């Protein structure tokens, strides 16, 4: 148990406190313990780079989560129709999840490359005015990020929700058939509430990966064009290792932590309340 204790106390709790402490100082490269309390947080709120990053993350996060859930749910329902080659489809939908974000980013960078990629191909088919240059357009690049992330993550949502669908009592389906309820009605009003806990799990997973988003951005767009796809994690890393703004970076990290807490806590409690209700 000793190693676990050391890691739990020394690393997880200790490092978190240390990071918080440094965020209250004016440290640049090495820690200086002269406290100015929340100055760094005030600076952060006035820092354009940070604000843009947060704004980008919100747009990216909301779109990514919504699209992933909708697409994942649709795929799960379709997979649940006693189809042929189910395991083949499952394999295809899930393989991107096995790959590194770096790989995902680089592949989509290439596919969406305006000079060679989809835009060029469609133009080659004779549609000379076809435009699909989101990756180089500051007002569209964030959607490219969403596209690549959905490609990687929606299979996971599908797998989680499909497991939930498979757990639904067969007799329930028989009952709705006897009652003559349309299938889509059954899915929306009966099945969806049953698998809500799985959907909540998937949402937590996706949210956490949104806040952590770093690799994908670095590989796919490098934060550009301009700062159109900058994200907080990247902001923290740059201030930590390139701009020697350690205190500011740690303040950013603490804000990321706060974001996770704000997202995860209500979902956690919602699930507990649901579980308690189910238990009676």
């Amino acid at each position, binding site marked *: 148990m000793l190693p676990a204790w050391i890691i739990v106390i020394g690393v997880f709790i200790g490092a978190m406190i240390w990071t918080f402490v440094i965020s209250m100082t004016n440290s640049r490269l090495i820690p200086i313990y002269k406290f100015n309390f929340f100055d760094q947080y005030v600076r952060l709120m006035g820092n354009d780079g940070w604000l843009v990053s947060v704004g980008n993350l919100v747009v990216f996060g909301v779109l990514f989560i919504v699209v992933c859930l909708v697409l994942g749910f649709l795929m799960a329902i379709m997979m649940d129709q006693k189809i042929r080659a189910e395991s083949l489809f499952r394999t295809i939908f899930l393989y991107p999840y096995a790959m590194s974000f770096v790989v995902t980013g680089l592949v989509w960078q290439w596919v969406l490359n305006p000079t060679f990629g989809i835009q060029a191909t469609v133009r080659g088919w004779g549609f000379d005015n076809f435009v699909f240059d989101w990756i180089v357009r500051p007002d569209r690049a964030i959607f490219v990020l969403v596209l690549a992330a959905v490609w990687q993550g929606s299979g996971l949502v599908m797998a989680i929700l499909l497991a939930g669908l498979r757990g639904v009592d067969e007799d329930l389906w028989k009952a709705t058939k006897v009652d003559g309820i349309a299938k889509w009605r059954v899915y929306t009003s009966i099945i969806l509430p049953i698998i809500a806990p799985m959907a909540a799990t998937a949402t937590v997973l996706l949210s956490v990966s949104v806040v952590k988003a770093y690799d994908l951005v670095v590989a796919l767009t490098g934060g550009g064009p301009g700062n159109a796809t900058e994200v907080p994690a990247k902001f923290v890393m740059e201030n930590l290792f390139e701009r020697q703004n350690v205190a500011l970076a740690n303040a950013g990290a603490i804000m990321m932590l706060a974001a996770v807490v704000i997202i*995860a806590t209500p979902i956690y409690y919602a699930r507990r309340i649901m579980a308690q209700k189910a238990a009676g």
Partner: protein
Amino acid sequence: MAQRAEKTIARFGVYAFLIIMAAFFLMPLYVMVATSLKTMDEVRGSSIFAIPMRPTLEAWTTAWNAACTGLTCAGVSVGFFNSLKIMIPSTFLSILLGAVTGYALSFWRPKGAGVIFAVLVVAAFIPYQVFIYPLVRVLSQVGLYNSLGGIIMVHVIFGLPVMVLMFRNYYAGLPRDLFSAARVDGGGFWDIFFRLMLPLSPPILIVAVILQSTHIWNDFLFGLVFAGSDNRPMTVLLNNIVNTTQGEKAYNVDMAATILTALVPLVIYLASGRWFVRGIAAGAVKG
């Protein structure tokens, strides 16, 4: 008759949806492979979707041992072996530590077990950025920063929450009487772990190996920060090759290097099949 027709149309719709989705999911993989098999002339002269006319592995060999990052041109092979050196011990150690801790929490229930478990569960959700700076400071103090030992340690530490969670839940599913019987039979902490629990653990061990090896292989952040220039894992090297080249980009080589990097987790994924899905369910807390 009308009802049957309706059913057929519905079936058709289902398959149409699935096939279109499958095409969307497979497209990047196809483009990646096709591009890597072309020469640069062919890349420039054809659509990314075009089938390679004269497939060649030239780009693959270049990517493997000659692609450049900055001034060094040794290909991704260096990263491949670095990644192996990082992945194998990290996977082994994090699983061992996770299994022992999960076993202890589940059966021996030492004082404070609840606290440890709670912290580990929460830690699985915390953004790594919160831990990075203190870890860099501490590791450089003890001389492990930018070393193989350091990066392995980091992987073991951050693998612990999910591993403990998985093993604890698995052991909690075993009958407690089994543990009691072994204790009455004279087994101590390690006797019971190695002779009874470990032999009962292959299902969860397989899942853990799949989960940890792919996660560690796919890691970018820790490799970038902690591995140092001598131990850069394949993902970091790949990103450097593709995103920092000066002059004209060799897209075919880039794609070949990308495939090579994706190959190990892909093989693990395809070989493990349903186990991978179970791993996702078990390790669902990891983001």
